[in-house]
């Protein structure tokens, strides 16, 4: 039942994304329009995939670090991706793929560094150190990024700044295909870890006693969620709050079991981000807002509401 509702909402969101836009096409022209097939559709599908990836990554990471305030970008990935992207812009790397690739490399670099820090205590990945290491690596990367931006020319600076806030204006069927080829593996790994993630909420030792291979689980989930986030940031920049708010929203509605939580977080994240992107490109048309601004403007009030509910109950 819930999947029918969510699938319906997803289709409605995608349909709305196809219907509206600055070009103001008459309804009859829509089916044959290149604007719909080459611009709006791939863009909406990409926003949906990225939102879904962030929802799933956020849900898994909150369970992994056992902290309900965890966000996929808290673990240093946004800092690393931002550094990679700004470095690509500052160095004038050519080609349409230079920027996403550089961002991906930056994010994976930050992931590897944080992972190494998390293993400092021994063979066990320590989630507390993951969090602290993520914040530290993120701050360090942000400092270098700011240094690069402050040395850059004015137009470059604007590009870099806008990229950091995220957006789908560069979406194409190729990006959609890349994401479609890339995302299923980490998504599948996370879905296969759904039940052990339920157990992890009790703590690492109780989870072991209920059959979870905690040591392996922590590594696998951290890597899969980070790789998912790295891909999202590479194609769309840093889009905050989806990975933070969507898991809580889904937990509130569908409970805490990850077998339900992960698929619903994917659909809900996809719907939210596709809708946010439609807003981002229409409210100030013909110009665009970075979609990260829309998600933050929508996400912060939702989050404040959730916090209030917690403190009340």
């Amino acid at each position, binding site marked *: 039942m819930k999947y029918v509702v969510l699938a319906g909402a997803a289709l409605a969101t995608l349909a709305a994304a196809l219907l509206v836009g600055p070009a103001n096409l008459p309804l009859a022209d829509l089916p044959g329009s290149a604007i719909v097939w080459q611009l709006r559709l791939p863009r909406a599908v990409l926003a949906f995939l990225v939102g879904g990836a962030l929802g799933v990554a956020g849900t898994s990471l909150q*369970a992994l670090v056992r902290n*309900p305030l965890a966000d996929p970008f808290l673990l240093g990935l946004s800092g690393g991706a931002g550094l990679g992207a700004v470095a690509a812009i500052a160095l004038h790397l050519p080609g349409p793929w230079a920027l996403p690739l550089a961002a991906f490399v930056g994010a994976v670099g930050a992931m590897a560094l944080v992972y190494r820090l998390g293993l400092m205590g021994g063979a066990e990945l320590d989630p507390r150190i993951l969090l602290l290491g993520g914040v530290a690596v993120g701050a360090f990367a942000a400092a270098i990024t700011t240094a690069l931006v402050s040395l850059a020319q004015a137009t470059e600076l604007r590009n870099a700044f806008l990229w950091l806030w995220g957006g789908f204006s560069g979406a194409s069927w190729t990006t959609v295909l890349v994401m479609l080829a890339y995302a299923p593996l980490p998504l599948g790994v996370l879905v296969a870890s759904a039940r052990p993630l339920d157990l992890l*909420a009790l703590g690492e030792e109780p989870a072991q006693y*209920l*059959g979870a291979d*905690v040591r392996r689980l922590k590594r696998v989930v951290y890597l899969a969620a980070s790789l998912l986030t790295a891909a999202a940031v590479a194609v769309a920049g840093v889009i905050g709050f989806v990975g933070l708010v969507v898991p809580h929203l889904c937990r509130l509605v569908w409970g*805490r079991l990850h077998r339900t939580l992960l698929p619903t977080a994917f659909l809900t994240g996809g719907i939210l981000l596709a809708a946010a992107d439609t807003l981002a490109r229409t409210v100030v048309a013909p110009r665009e807002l970075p979609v990260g601004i829309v998600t933050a403007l929508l996400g912060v009030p939702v989050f404040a509401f959730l916090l209030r509910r917690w403190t009340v109950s």
Partner: protein
Amino acid sequence: MDRELIVALRGVTCRYPDAARDNLVSVSLELPAGELHAVLGPNGSGKTTLVRAALGLVPLVAGEAEILGRPAHTWSRRALARLVGVLPQREDNLFPQRVRETVLLGRYPHLSLFGGVGATDRAAVDGALAACDAADLADRWLWTLSGGEYQRVRLARALAQEPRLLVLDEPTASLDLRHEMELFELVRTLVDAQGLGVLMITHHVNLAARFADRVLLLSEGRPAGAGAPGGVLTRDTVERVFAWPVSIAPFEGRPQMTPLRLRKEAR
């Protein structure tokens, strides 16, 4: 009747990586099905380490730890969870959940990767809740339970694993008299009626003496006595291990300890 040996520790010595001394020194224990063994000893005497060693979670320096005749560390976590239910002292509840949900977690070691929760699982959950007198709690939120109810629910989760062995780490800490007695009676019933083996860590010398078939007394990681309560819990031994004067008198055939006041000159 010859009962199957579930846990066997033989001369186990172990040490955590950063410890100054061995945390356990040549400790032995044999727990057959249908018996309740209590592990006693002061804080830091190695009780929890003993349990972790028995479950293959601490590497051994010397000795053997076996479960059903197989070295404990060779069991996969999942296979072991189908055999042993553990109630650790501490656990968290990161996100709110209901009683039935948390008891269902006990079925996880039995579920296949993509398979759903079936009728046998639901029956096991209901059976475990009933056995722990917790059936009427099933739809409650966990955070609304009293301490005694919460421990019964956790015991039900361990029973839902359909284990042969229960390991309980201070299950009655911070429970009042009635809830504490109820839990001990419940555990004893499970041992006698279902033939479970139970290894229980506790600070309650007197309850251990009355409910356990055998006790193992640890002192600074070394065995200070092992066997039937009457043989182990003598005044000399208890005073030495717990470093406090006591008197011991039998009650219903089991030794019962009363800690003494320090004598003050003014009295």
